[in-house]
């Protein structure tokens, strides 16, 4: 009888430990680091894509610096929008 009691208490302690581990994992696991890396490139990529589109249009319509500048700022806006959206998605999950 004593042995069974001992085993049950030990089981409970082990279960608690697993629970705590899971809690810690969900807060600071590798996934959050992945999210951080994800957001930083999203901002840059949109700016690059916007500027490239502007540059291509400039070559096409012969309006050298004008469209590049316009599309650069639109790219910045798109980048911020991207970051804002992924931040919102993260917030929803928490």
């Amino acid at each position, binding site marked *: 009888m004593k042995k069974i009691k001992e085993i049950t208490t030990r089981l409970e302690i082990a279960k608690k430990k697993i629970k705590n581990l899971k809690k810690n994992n969900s807060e600071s696991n590798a996934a959050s680091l992945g999210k951080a*890396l994800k957001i930083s490139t999203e901002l840059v*990529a949109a700016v*690059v894509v916007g500027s490239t589109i502007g540059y291509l249009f400039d070559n096409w319509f012969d309006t050298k610096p004008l469209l590049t500048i316009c599309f650069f700022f639109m790219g910045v806006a798109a980048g911020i929008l991207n970051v804002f959206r992924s931040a919102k998605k993260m917030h929803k999950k928490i």
Partner: protein
Amino acid sequence: MQQFEVYKIGPEINLGGINLSFTNSSLFMIISSGLILLLLFFGTKKKSLVPSKIQLITEMSYTFVAKMINDTAGSSAKTFFPFIFTLFMFVLFSNMVGMLPYSFTVTSHIIVTFVLAAFVFVGVTVLGFVKHGIKYLELFVPKGVPIVLLPLIIIIEIISYLSRPVSLSVRLFANMMAGHTMLKVFGGFVISLGLLGGWLPLGFSVALTGLEILVAFLQAYVFAILTCIYLNDALNLHH
């Protein structure tokens, strides 16, 4: 740098003006695909109730990807499991094989990662149009925007959509390239500081190797999870 150089192995093959020679990059792609095949073959060979180590790894990677798809893209994306599993395992194994000394990191070249990302991008776009028809373009028109602002918003949304493959490929490429360059730089410090001061950068390089292994796994995970998110956008419009 020498570790990023691509060189021919065997004869030069030219098909219609396109250079199709077998390079060290192709060799390491074949090695990583072969390793995946070996792992899955031996992992599923003996289906015992109490799994062996190799079977455990196989089953864990299966459930890991299945859970990821279920959490981010919903159950309707289950049909794309083979694609995402292949993508995840290929990126993971190319990154990990690249961590071995004297090997070549396939994913440290932007053209490789860009082709992977472009496949995802084109596939998701085609899927969206097949599933929703012309209504898929509603993705670019957010709800509740005044008509005056609409042209500007649509351009911004299109740029944001087009930036997906760029960010997806640049992230993987930049992380792998930067990590390997950093290891090389610290390795160079060890040599130049000599026996007296070289111990500190040596310790750093050991720590950075650990970090690199984490990054190698993480980037594969991020690549796969973003594919799932894009799939979710294409499958369930207006979530």
